C-alpha cells in the first residue's frame, strides 16, 4: 500500500512576521459546513449544543470556543471548526466536509486590524467588529471569511488555492503597518 503525504495549504509560505505582526497557519483538523434543512434551524441548533456545546451562530457571529467553534458562513450556513461532526446532525442539516477546501491563517499582534484595513473594506473598529464577530468579505480580491478571535487576533480563511496570494497580500499589508509604526 502506498503512503500519501499530506500537505497543508500554507506549507512553506507561513509564518510571516513584520514588526509586531505575525501571520501563521492555523489549519484545523476538521471543518464541516452545516446547512439546516427546511424548518430544521432550531432543531439543528439544539443538536449542535448537545453534541458540541455551541448554538448555531446568528449571521456575522461565531459561537463556541478555541478548539470547537461554529462560524457563520453564509445564508443559513455555518462552519463547524475543530471537532468531527456528530453523526446525529445529519438528520437536521446537510453536512459537507470542507477540511481541505480552505487555507486558514491566524493574524495576531498590535496593528492587526490596520493591516486588514489595507485589504478589506469592512469596519473593523473594536466597537463595530467585536470578539466573536465574523464576516464573509473581500480580502484583496479574494473571497474570504474573517473572524475576530480576540482583541488583536484574527482568523482569516480563503480558498485553499489562494494560499500563496493571501501570503503575498498580507506580507505587503503587514510590512506597511510595521514600517509606519517604526518597528
Amino acid at each position, binding site marked *: 500500500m502506498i503512503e500519501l503525504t*499530506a500537505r497543508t495549504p500554507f506549507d512553506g509560505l507561513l509564518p510571516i512576521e513584520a514588526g509586531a505582526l505575525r501571520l501563521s497557519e492555523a489549519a484545523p483538523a476538521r471543518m464541516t459546513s452545516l446547512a439546516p434543512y427546511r424548518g430544521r434551524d432550531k432543531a439543528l441548533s439544539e443538536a449542535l449544543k448537545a453534541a458540541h456545546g455551541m448554538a448555531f451562530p446568528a449571521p456575522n457571529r461565531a459561537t463556541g470556543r478555541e478548539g470547537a467553534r461554529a462560524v457563520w458562513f453564509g445564508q443559513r450556513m455555518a462552519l463547524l471548526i475543530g471537532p468531527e461532526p456528530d453523526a446525529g446532525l445529519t438528520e437536521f442539516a446537510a453536512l459537507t466536509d470542507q477540511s481541505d477546501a480552505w487555507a486558514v491563517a491566524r493574524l495576531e499582534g498590535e496593528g492587526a486590524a490596520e493591516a486588514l484595513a489595507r485589504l478589506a473594506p469592512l469596519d473593523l473598529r473594536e466597537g463595530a467588529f467585536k470578539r466573536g464577530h465574523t464576516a464573509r468579505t473581500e480580502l*484583496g480580491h479574494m473571497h474570504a471569511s474573517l473572524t475576530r478571535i480576540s482583541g488583536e487576533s484574527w482568523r482569516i480563511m480563503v480558498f485553499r*488555492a489562494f494560499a500563496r496570494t493571501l501570503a503575498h497580500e498580507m506580507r505587503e499589508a503587514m510590512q506597511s503597518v510595521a514600517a509606519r509604526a517604526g518597528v
Partner: protein
Amino acid sequence: MRIAGKGLIDRARPVGFRFDGHRYEGFAGDTLASALLANGIRVMGRSFKYHRPRGVLSAGSEEPNALVTTGLGPAQEPNVRATTLELHEGLMARSQNRWPSLGWDALAVNDLFAPFLGAGFYYKTFMWPRRFWERVYEPVIRRAAGLGALSGEAVTQKYERAWAHCDLLVIGAGPAGLMAARTAAEAGADVILVDEDTVCGGRLNAERLEVDGRPGAEWAAAMAADLAARPNVRIMTRTTVTGAYDGGVYGALERLAHDVAMRPGAPLECFWRINARAAVLAAGALERPVAFANNDRPGVMTAGAVRAYLNRWRVAPGRNVAVFGNTDDAHRTAADLVAAGVHVSALIDARPHARCDLDVPFYAGAQVCNAQGRHGLEAISIARASGIEKVQADCLAMSGGWNPTLHLTCHMNGRPAWNPDIAAFVPRDGAIPGMVTAGACRGDFSTRACLEGGARAAAQALETLGLKAPEADIPKAEDSAYDIAPLWAVPGKGRAWLDFQNDVTVKDVKQAAVENFRSVEHMKRYTTQGMATDQGKNSNVAALAVLADATGRGIPETGTTTFRPPYSPVAIAAMGAGAQGKGFAPERFTTSHAASVARGAPMIEAGLWYRPSYFPKPGETHWRQSCDREVGYVRGAVGIADVSTLGKIDIQGRDAGAFLDYVYTNTFSTLKVGRVRYGLMLREDGFVMDDGTCARLGEEHYLMTTTTAAAGQVMRHLEFVHQCLAPKMDVRFISVTEQWAQFAVAGPKSRALLDDLLDAPVGDMPFMGCGEVTVGGVAARLFRISFSGEHAYELAVPARYGDALFRELAARAEGLGGGPYGMEALNVLRIEKGFITHAEIHGRVTADDIGMGRMISAKKDCIGKTMAARPGLSEPGREQLVGLKPVGAVKELTAGAHLFEQDAQAVSANDLGYLTSVGFSPTFGRFLGLGFLRDGRERHGEVLRAVDHLRQTETLVEVQDPVQFDADGGRTRD
C-alpha cells in the same frame, strides 16, 4: 531672506537640498518654496504657454507657478508643488517647462508672439490638413507648452490603499476643524481629523493672531496634542480629502513623511477610502489674486502667502514690499511686515473709504495697474485719480479677497450660492448628505466665527449620530468684520493674468465672450481657464466675474463651472496601489502546481487558475512534439491530468433530485445511486449556460461538476434559482471545488494503473459509474467518466493529498508507457471526440445548435425550456455544430476563421459560420476543427473556404460530423 524669530522651523536642524543642480540649505519644517525664497531664489518655473518666468504665488496646495519635478527614472514625479513639498536632506528638485535653463528659456520667444497665441488660436489655426493634427501639430504644441513629464518607466516604489471608518470625519484642522473635532470627541464619537498640511492649525500657523490669550499656532498645537491623546480620535496630517462620494465615502490621499516613507516596506503615499457616518467640512478659504497688467511677475504673491512665509517660515519674500488689497487683510499684511522689520514701500487699498493707522506710504482708493521686472519684480505702477505713480518694490503682496474652499460640497452636483456681502460663493446646506460646513469654507472669516462655527457644526452632526454635544467653550479670539469692495481686474493695457497655470488672461475671457462663448462652461473650454492641475483654484471666480462683466450679467446669473474630484492631483499609482504585478489578480494554484512546474510545464491562465500547457521532454523543441506525445499516452497507454479546476458542487436534501431536474434540461431524479450522468444547463433566456456531469452519491446526495470557466456562474445561478424561483425546495449546496484534488486517469491502461494503486481493485465499475474507494488508506472517490473518448477514470482525494497523489499517478503512468498530459493534449483529445467546451457554448448557442436539442426533456419543465422553444432558436438557417478537416493545399486550420462557399467572396454578407476550436490530431495525422455552420448538419461532405481575415490565411475544409474519433464510443465503454 531669512529673518529672526521662531516660526515653525527648526533652526537647529539645517537641511541640504538641490534645485536645478545648485546646492542650498534650509531648515527642518521648510517647504521647498520657503527654502528657495530664503535663499533669494524668486524664479521657480516657466509658464505653460508663454514660458514667462514665474515665482511662487501662494503658500499652499493651490500653487499654480512653483511646480517642480523630483526623483529620477521610475521615481520621477512631475508637477510637485514647491509650496507643499517638505524639505528633506538630499532632496533634488528640478524646474520644468524650460530649455536649456530656467534663467534662459528658448521658448520664451512664445511670449513675443502672444498677440497671436490668444484663446482659440489653436482651434482656428490648425484646422487643416486634418491628418496633420495628430501627427504634426499636437506633438509640436505639446512639446512647446506643458508642465513636467513622467519618465515613462513603471513605478517601482510602493503605494498603498486602505479603508478607514469613523462616526465623524472632520476635513481641515484649522480653528473650525479643531473645535469640531474636540466637540465630537468629547461627545464620544469616533473622529478622524484630516488636514493636508504637516501640522494642525490652518491659518493660525501663518498669522500673528492669538487664541485664548496665546499665539494661535501654540493653541492649535495644544489642541492637536489633546486630541491625539484621545483613543477615539485619529489625526491624519499630510492627507488631502480629494473627493466626496455616495454613502458617506470620502477619498483621501496621504503623503507619508519622507523619513517614514524611506523605511523598508513603507509606502510613499496611501489612498484612503474613508467611510464616515457624518462629516464636517472645515477646509478654509483660498485667497484670490487681482488681475492687472503683468501681475504674474516673480515677486507678486498673495498677501496671505506673504504672511505665511513671514510668520511660519520666517522668510521675507522681499526687502522692499508693496501691499495691495481690497480688505483689511492688506493692512494686516503691512503690519506683519513692519513687525518683522521689512520695509513696506506702499500700502494700496482699493477701497476709497479706507484709512490707515500704520506708518507706511498709504494709497486709498488706488489700484496697482502694472508691474515691471521680467525676472523679478522691480517696481509697480499705481493708478490714482491724480495719475499713475511708480513705486519701487521687489515683492507685491496682493489680495482680492477670499474664496471659501467649497469644492467638496459640489462633488455630488451641488451648486454654490453667491453671497454679495463677502463677494464670494458659499456652499449650500445639504449639498453632500451627512456633511455640514464650518468656518471660512462657509464664509465665516473671523477666527472667533470659525471657532464657534466648528463647535456648532459638530453639534449638528452629532445630533444625526444620536450623540449629545457638550456645552461649547469657545476660546477668545479676533472677531473683526470682513469689509470688502469687489475687485477682479484693474482696467488698462497689457496682459492681466487670471489663470496663471494655463496662461489665461482677462483679454482671453473677453475674447471668448465676443465669440459668443458666453456660458461659463464654454468660456472655460475655449480659454482652458481652470483646466490645469490646480483646477482653477486661484482663478475660477475672478474669471467668471470678468465674463459676467463682459456679457452684462451678474455673477450669480453667470454661475460657476463644475467642481469635480480630485480636489488636488492624485497619482494613478496611489489610486491603483497594489494592483500591479502579483496584486493585479489573485492566483489560484492546483495541488499539482509545484510538481508540474518541476517537470518544466509552462503554466497557462484559465480564469484565475494556472494549468499546465504541456510537459516537455528533453530533446523536444516545439510544444507540438510534446502535445502529440501526450495525446499518444492517452490513446495508447495511460495519461494523467489534473482536473481539479472543474467546479464541484455538493448538493443534498430531500428535493435535491427535483432541484436538479429543474436546473438541468435532462432528468436526474431517476439516476441510480452510484451512477453519473451528463447534463446540460440553460440560462433563463434558453441559451446554453454550461454542461458537465453529475453523480448521485446517495439517495439525497449529488455531486455536480461544472466547467472551469463557469464554476462561479453556475454556483450563483443555483443560489438564484433556489432563493428566488424554488425557495420551497428542501435542498442545500456548497462548493467543494477546493476540497478535492481530482485527476483524470485516461487510456487503455488506466484500469491496470488503478487496480495496482488503489487499496482494492476497481472491479467492474461500469462506464458512468462512481463509488468510494481508498488509496493508501485515504478515503477517495472514483468516477468512470471520460473527456478523451478512452476508457478513463477520475480519482478524487482530499486536497491535502493532491500533490502526493499526482506525483504517484504520473510516475506510475510513466511506468506503463504513459505520463502526465497538459491542456494542449486535453484539447486535441476532446476535439477528436467532438466534445464541447466554452469555445463552443460561448453564450450565443442553443441546445439544438450543438445537436443536443433532444436533451431538453419533454416530460418536465426546466429553466430555459420555454424560452428555448421560441421560434428562431431552432429553425433552419441557424448555425450548427460541425466537425471540419482541411482538404486544400494549406493544411493548417485556425480558430476564428470564417466559412464561405468556394465561389463566394469572403465578405460578411456571405458568411456561413466560423471555426471555434482547432488542433493537430496525431491520431489522424492532420488538423481537426470544430465550428458552427449554417444548417451544418445537412452539409456533411461539402467543401468550403475557411478564411481567417485576421491572420490572412485561407484553406479549404470539408464538413463532417463533430465526432471524428471512435464514433460509436466503443473505446470509452469497453
